[in-house]
């Protein structure tokens, strides 16, 4: 009898051995920092070649994201001393079972808001650092920012875009065939009905946010739909399932929808925190340079390049230890 091959999984579904091998090898190459533009294209082609390839890669990003938030040094110092301990035979099955339970409860925490599993099965989604623009059947333009996911349902009654994660920018279309059908963006917190318009909706840990750049929208919280609020051009609002409140307009959606990251006399640490939303891995800012201020407009498509250009405008150095681990520090520091 031959021993059974080890079972491989990604995002809860079985995964082919060859796909797992390929994904693991791509990751090794990326971390070596030796992926050039041509290689990166081949990697994108590989991801697009089969849904399993994309699934495997998303799985890597999701799992590694769970430990990349750990304080630097902590994980290594905890795990390294255990390296030489012998594994006891027969432990694996039990550990696998316990591991499954542990992960499920961990995801349970996150699922309350960021819903990674739902996002994975969405109609349309973007990975970290990716943006996507599509034209809907009614001529509306929908732009997904980094790490976002939506479901789209046009059912003859309404034009519904369900925002599952991240943020979107919408310019509603005016195709006569859809004249009687309201355009609605729904989140778990409530509904945003477009009143002929250009606007953005985002979901984060604290609830949902809407910013209106032309005309107006109407917010209706999921739990108290009668508490509607009209938000006009140049205004913003936050809402959860119970209520909504006005807030200052956030201009960033118009900028990222144009593929740009604007810095207007910002602190370097704030800028890097914003840039970090478009990158996998750790982006660290040395406290010694955190307060430096600068201005500029940067193309979001290549965040590596934005980082590489920083020393042109500021007295800093940028160390790419791996693609997933970048430190911005003073020029003379090691």
């Amino acid at each position, binding site marked *: 009898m031959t021993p059974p091959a080890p079972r491989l999984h990604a995002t809860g579904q079985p995964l082919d051995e060859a796909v797992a091998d390929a994904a693991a090898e791509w990751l090794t190459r990326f971390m*070596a920092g030796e992926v050039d533009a041509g290689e990166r294209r081949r990697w994108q082609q590989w991801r697009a070649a089969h849904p399993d390839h994309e699934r495997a890669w998303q799985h890597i990003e999701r799992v590694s994201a769970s430990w990349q938030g750990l304080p630097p*040094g902590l994980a290594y110092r*905890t795990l390294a001393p255990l390296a030489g301990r012998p594994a006891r035979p*027969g432990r694996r099955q039990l550990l696998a079972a316990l591991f499954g339970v*542990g992960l499920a409860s961990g995801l349970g925490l996150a699922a309350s808001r960021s819903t990674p599993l739902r996002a994975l099965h969405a109609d349309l989604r973007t990975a970290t650092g990716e943006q996507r623009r599509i034209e809907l059947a009614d001529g509306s333009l929908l732009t997904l920012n980094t790490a976002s996911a939506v479901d789209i349902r046009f059912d003859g009654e309404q034009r519904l875009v369900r925002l599952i994660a991240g943020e979107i920018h919408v310019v509603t279309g005016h195709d006569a065939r859809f004249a009687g059908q309201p355009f609605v963006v729904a989140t778990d917190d409530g509904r945003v009905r477009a009143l002929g318009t250009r606007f953005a909706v985002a979901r984060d840990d604290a609830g949902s946010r809407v910013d209106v750049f032309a005309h107006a929208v109407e917010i209706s919280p999921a739990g108290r739909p009668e508490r509607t609020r009209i938000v006009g051009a140049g205004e913003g609002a936050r809402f959860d399932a119970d209520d909504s409140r006005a807030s200052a307009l956030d201009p960033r959606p118009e900028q990222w929808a144009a593929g740009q990251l604007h810095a207007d006399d910002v602190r370097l640490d704030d800028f890097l925190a914003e840039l970090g939303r478009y990158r996998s891995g750790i982006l660290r800012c040395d406290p010694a340079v955190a307060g430096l201020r600068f201005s500029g407009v940067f193309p979001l498509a290549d965040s590596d390049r934005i980082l590489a250009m920083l020393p042109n405008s500021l007295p800093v150095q940028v160390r790419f230890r791996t693609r997933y681990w970048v430190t911005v520090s003073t020029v003379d520091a090691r």
Partner: protein
Amino acid sequence: MSAVHPVADLYTEHHRWLLGWLRRKLGCHDQAADLAQDTFVSILTAGNAGEIREARPFLATVANRLVAHRYRRQLLENAYLEALAALPEALAPSPEDRLQALQVLQQLDQALDGLPPAVRQAFLLAHLEGASYAEIGERLGVSTSSVKQYLTRANRQCFFAIAA
């Protein structure tokens, strides 16, 4: 056919024996009682109690695994507390984040289980310390191409070998 659940039979006939066996092994009554309980829960969850032929060796095997698991968790927790104490205050996670961080570390430890020490070490240095392959190679006394082989193997196991 017996109407009683097979685990109930096991429990009635062998619980006292298992408790005594664990107490001798661990030297602590409370721990032994806990682990005996966990052993039966584990068998109940597995749902294959009806197929067991040699009850006592089977119980001992399951209990041994649980002991090993608990021991490993304890080692990890100790290492975690030491690492926390060594962190500068500004970097230390808040009390709420500490438990979550520990869970993440336990998952990582389990995901890397069974890998040779050098392979595991290469993975930790690359992913958690951001070390370059050249640095890792120097530290482990191997070539950069070996480091890549180690990482591909560790990446594959860590990300895909366990259902998630």
